[in-house]
């Protein structure tokens, strides 16, 4: 049978032709935009406390002559964090008010925020936590940590896995044995213990930036072995393909063959693997922070915020808004998995060789 001759449409076009792909990309795009513009979108800083307003419920929104406004609350019983809206009293929402200063993208100095209310009133879209910090703002700042850790982690672990696995598969010999034995060693150690041990081996007096880096390195160190083994297998089978032999006969150097002929054929696998592995890093960070050995206060991350939500009080008093980081983790992980599955569906037919 003749293969149906058709131009291969680009990965993007095929991805966008599928509803799950559009949904996943849309969600992730939204989440990453939120993280990128977190300081602008958040009305308050991640560490801004207000001990007068602990466990404040989400403020209600109403419409007044002056436009959109928030209700004002009075603290009925400070021992129980019981807040009651004061009837008829509101504070108008200001658009683009000046607030605490920050640097957008870490570069542009800026003082404007998207919205806010006239101090001393406060707007808590998703309530406040035990020290009166705005959960909505912390959720946005936490997204910066939680969402970037996956991207950076996967770049490191897939990078290491690609180099180690690719070279092992292509050259074989002692290097292959070395890499494979190392990965087996890593995989034989239970992941959680290794994680705790590595975390414990370093001083706990690190600043939050250093802890962030440390977590990325630890997670990547654990993650590269699986990728390396799969990539080695792929490289091994690609090496046996005739087009690699043809490249050798042409006189290409091994590095050029790896770069030109192996890497493009691995690219689709790497893409799928990346999409499906990123949730592991997000969950890994959340787990570490939840256990108290990840991101440290007063920085925000989703895992850390959930750790605070585990207090008995939160469940007893039904402070549901403190669980929103869990929902954010869920949505992100689900979106990445959806993207990975859709990518695999799109790419898989290309792996099939021409059938006659």
């Amino acid at each position, binding site marked *: 049978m003749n293969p149906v001759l*058709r131009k291969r449409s680009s990965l993007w076009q095929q991805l966008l032709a599928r509803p799950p792909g559009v949904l996943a990309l849309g969600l992730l795009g939204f989440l990453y935009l939120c993280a990128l513009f977190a300081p602008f979108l958040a009305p308050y800083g991640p560490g801004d406390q207000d001990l007068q307003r602990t466990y404040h419920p989400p403020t209600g929104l109403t419409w007044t002559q002056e436009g959109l406004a928030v209700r004002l609350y009075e603290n009925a019983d400070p021992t129980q964090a019981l807040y009651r809206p004061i009837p008829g009293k509101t504070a108008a929402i200001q658009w683009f008010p000046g607030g605490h200063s920050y640097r957008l993208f870490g570069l542009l100095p800026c003082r404007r925020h998207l919205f806010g209310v006239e101090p001393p009133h406060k707007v808590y879209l998703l309530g406040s936590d035990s020290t009166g910090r705005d959960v909505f703002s912390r959720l946005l700042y936490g997204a910066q940590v939680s969402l970037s850790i996956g991207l950076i982690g996967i770049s490191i672990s897939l990078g290491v896995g690609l180099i180690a696995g690719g070279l092992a598969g292509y050259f074989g010999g002692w290097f292959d044995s070395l890499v494979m034995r190392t990965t087996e060693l890593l995989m034989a150690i239970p992941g959680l213990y290794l994680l705790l041990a590595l975390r414990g081996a370093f001083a706990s007096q690190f600043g939050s930036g250093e802890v962030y880096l440390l977590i990325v390195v630890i997670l990547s160190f654990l993650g590269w072995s699986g990728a390396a083994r799969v990539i080695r297998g792929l490289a091994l089978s690609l090496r046996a393909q005739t087009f690699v032999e043809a490249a050798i006969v042409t006189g290409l150097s091994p590095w050029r063959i790896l770069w030109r002929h192996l890497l493009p054929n691995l690219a689709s696998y790497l893409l799928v693997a990346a999409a499906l592995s990123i949730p592991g890093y997000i969950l890994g960070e959340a787990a570490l922070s939840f256990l108290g050995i990840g991101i440290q206060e007063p920085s925000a991350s989703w895992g850390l915020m959930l750790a605070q939500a585990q207090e008995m009080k939160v469940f007893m008093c039904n402070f549901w808004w403190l669980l929103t980081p869990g929902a954010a983790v869920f949505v992100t992980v689900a979106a990445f998995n959806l993207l990975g599955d859709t990518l695999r569906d799109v790419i898989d037919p290309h792996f099939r060789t021409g059938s006659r």
Partner: protein
Amino acid sequence: MSDPNAAPLLQVSDLAIEFASPERTIRAVDGVSFSMANGSTLAVVGESGSGKSVTALSLARLLPSPPARVRSGKILFDGTDLLTLPETALRHYRGGKIAYVFQEPSTSLNPVFSVAFQLSEAMALHRHDLTDRRAAGLAALSEVGIRDPERCWKSYPHELSGGMQQRVMIAMALVCRPQLLVADEPTTALDVTIQAQILNLLRDIRSRFGMAILLITHNFGLVKGFADHVVVMFRGKIVEQGPTDSLLAAPRHPYTQALIACVPRLGESKKRLTTIDYDKLDALLSPS
């Protein structure tokens, strides 16, 4: 040979098959009609894309649908229209009355099961009368010229050479005692020497068991001395058909002539081979 007045074993009439994709629809088989008598051999010759394999697969409705779709036509096997038969009744024909041998023996056999398992499975499906499957299987293996059937019975496909694998495929077809054996390019993946052996085997089986054989091939060289009748297909249509000897001696259609001429012959060293002039054929075929 067979009685010309008897009802044919297989009668394909005005068969048209399309492959639909979102972009376009391709007509792979277009108005194909031919018939085969009991115990006869027919060769369908054509190039890749001529629709010969599609025709062969459609006989037992083996084409995946979608994308394949039968637009029109009838396939009468022993008086039954296979195209309208319900799926459950069709299973009786598939592998039972109509057996297939495919091009790639290495992919037609399941690599994780032994020859014994795969042969027994075929018998379990289609030969309920057999009590001793092992004996029947060993007999089938020796019928296809395997010298050590005991050893072959126990082995796995990867332990056998391509020629041996193809013999096992033929044995699998044989144990079901089919009335029609469809051999779809059975020798294309094999060496010329093995090809000759497999063709001899098929010829031998036909005379011993009296089954009809439908040979699908791109090589006119295999037709002579094997098939009683030839059907030549080009772009989904039959361009010529007739008894092998007369067709080979005096091919009428230019496509048939070219297809015969392009086969390399021994003793014609360094001579240019004849190739098919598709432009000329297009010009010839377009007015009709």
